[in-house]
């Protein structure tokens, strides 16, 4: 996986046009923070060498262009079309080599159990075993992973957005990344075998549920029963 992969299919001129479009879009939307040559400013880091994957992830999940200063850049509705994102990614990728957008073959694995195990070992401490999300320090958090596109999951692993570490191919092979993605998709799509999952938040939501709904229902019944007899 090199930055040349995405260029393989397209002809040289198309790439040149895409890159040129990307440069314009970048100058209009991103340069105020990242600088005209994406060299970085006081407000934002340099993008030279972050690769197409990082741009695709950041812009494709709506994190960039960043709106307000906060503990971390959060997801928003995506502001660009797929072509525009591809253009931005192509231009940033042309600035220096970096991880590229993964191909479809790496987005679906066949070993759910390995995926689950790797997820528990590498990701669950931040994202929770079922991908329900979790708190980090100083108001930062690891988001819930339901509904995230497969390619964005892959890109998150290879680019390590903000407080998330980078999982390069030596840590987790591309096949295993695919297994992790499949595990997350399985959890999301199969639903909980036991019924409502209460947000997969574990004993806290179960405890609240028992106090509010179970005991609440029973107390309501006791009040009703004794009211009748009086």
């Amino acid at each position: 996986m090199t930055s040349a992969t995405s260029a393989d299919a397209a002809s040289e001129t198309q790439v040149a046009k895409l890159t040129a479009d990307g440069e314009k879009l970048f100058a209009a939307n991103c340069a105020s923070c990242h600088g005209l040559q994406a060299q970085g400013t006081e407000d934002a880091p340099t993008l030279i060498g972050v690769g197409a994957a990082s741009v695709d992830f950041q812009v494709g999940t709506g994190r960039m262009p960043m709106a307000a200063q906060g503990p971390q850049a959060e997801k928003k509705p995506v502001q660009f079309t797929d072509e525009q994102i591809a253009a931005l990614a192509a231009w940033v990728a042309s600035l220096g080599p970096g991880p590229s957008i993964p191909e479809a073959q790496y987005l679906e694995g066949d070993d759910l159990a390995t995926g689950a195990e790797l997820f528990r070992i590498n990701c669950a401490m931040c994202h929770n075993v079922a991908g329900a999300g979790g708190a980090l320090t100083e108001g930062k958090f690891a988001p819930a992973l339901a509904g995230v596109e497969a390619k964005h999951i892959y890109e998150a692993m290879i680019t390590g957005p903000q407080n998330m570490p980078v999982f390069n191919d030596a840590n987790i092979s591309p096949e295993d990344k695919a297994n992790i993605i499949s595990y997350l998709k399985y959890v999301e799509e199969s639903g909980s075998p036991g019924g409502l999952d209460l947000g997969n938040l574990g004993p806290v939501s179960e405890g609240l549920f028992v106090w509010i709904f179970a005991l609440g229902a029973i107390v309501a019944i006791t009040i009703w029963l004794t009211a009748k007899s009086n």
Partner: protein
Amino acid sequence: MSTDTATATTAAPAAEQKAPPGPGMRFVNWGANYIEDRTSLSGMVKELGRKIFPDHWSFMLGEVALYSFVVILLSGTFLTFFFQASMAPVIYEGAYPTMKGVEMSAAMASTLDISFEVRGGLLMRQVHHWAALLFVASIGLHMLRVFFTGAFRKPREINWVVGFLLFILAMAEGFTGYSLPDDLLSGNGLRIIDGMVKGVPVIGTWISYLLFGGEFPGEAIVGRLYMLHIMLLPALVIAAIGVHMILLIVNKHTQFAGPGRTQENVVGAPILPVFAAKAAGFFFIVFGVIMVIASTVTINPIWNYGPYDPSPVSAGTQPDWYIGFADGMLRLIPPHLETEIFGFTFTWYILIPIVVLGLFLVVVALYPFIEGWVTGDKREHHIADRPRNAPARTAIGAAGVTFYAVMWAAASSDLIATHFRLSIEWVTHTLQALLILGPIIAYLVTKRVCLGLQKKDREIALHGFESGRIVRLPGGEYIEVHEQLSDYDRWRLVSYEEYAPLMVRPNTNGKITVSTKLRGALSRWFFEDRIAPVTRAEIEASHHGH
């Protein structure tokens, strides 16, 4: 003898007078006589059947606990048929795809099998776990009811202690059961217990090795917990419930004040047949609520957690709710509090929570005796207090509940942070402050509210309540007509006992000991603000005035 039997077996004599009994009735009669001749049970049935239970919704909370325990026993027995309490490693080859081929303990694998292979197994697991959560929750609420109505006072102090033991046993049952599947979540819980045990100076490590049969996690703990969970603890729970019930019958149930309800009687329904029938119906309601929840809401999805492995820890790792207060205390204590003395490390961030939690529980257990000593009250009490009429106790209770609630909230500090978009540090520091300030504020506010309510009651008892009807007097003055209460309603408001602080008196040697002084001071604090109940003379006087 034979008449006794007839009473116990309902309607037998009536049938005899009319027509010769049918074969069914003859069998029942024969059966009843057979049992009676060999056990003389009828006397007891008659005695018990005449026990009276007063009617108030809050008196049913203990029943909820009892019935959820029955549900726990039933579903738990089912689970024992399939669960393997072994930590021997096996390769899971069952139906759940994300676990296929994963190495895990036999305990975990059999729990997955119960969930996905055994017919009705998942439902039974969920029934068992939800019923367990409800069991402890209803005990908690029941204890609060007993506390706030002063139903723990003489002669019921011992039963309070027995109930407290049940609360502790229920938590122990819950924790041991929670740990049995040997999944990641419960394994992390055990890890914390292990850490706490090891934090005890000098002997900690030894005890940990003893508990786990070697270095944590070892291969023994699930088997040991299983023994506790299905034999020792249930036996103790059942024994304690037995004592609790016997004492309940001996002491009789408390009741709220009302016309015709005195310290000497109990007004309500007799066990046989009214209360027993109602109770049976109520059992099925509780059972039904648990079933509905268990069949629609997931609990403890171990298939997400995966087998225990010491390295991964999931975000949002929490114990079941009733252990949350302990987890929360650990989260609230500032980290790094450690000193080294003579080569032993004193880990204060573990020792302080253990001491605080221990003291809290001891105070709860001994509260009846503490209050009895402070108030010097040796009278028997069969009329439940309205919480407002014992402002100091109610305020102490509110402070205790606040203290517990803050610890409890701290156990979910991470979820509070993510769900309310706060920083976890901020949440923790706020809760740390609340742990100390919260109970004080709760105490003061509750006491004020109680006194305010008492004043209002007094007003109403003496002058009636505002009817909303404005009348213009001939002189042009406007007044609002006050409606007098009926005698029934007034009864509720005025019948409570009056207390006064203890007098500090010298003992037989003519000395005032330190403990007497302390007692006097505490007693003054307990009673310093109080509103005297309305006296008959006052009521009569106020009526003449109108």
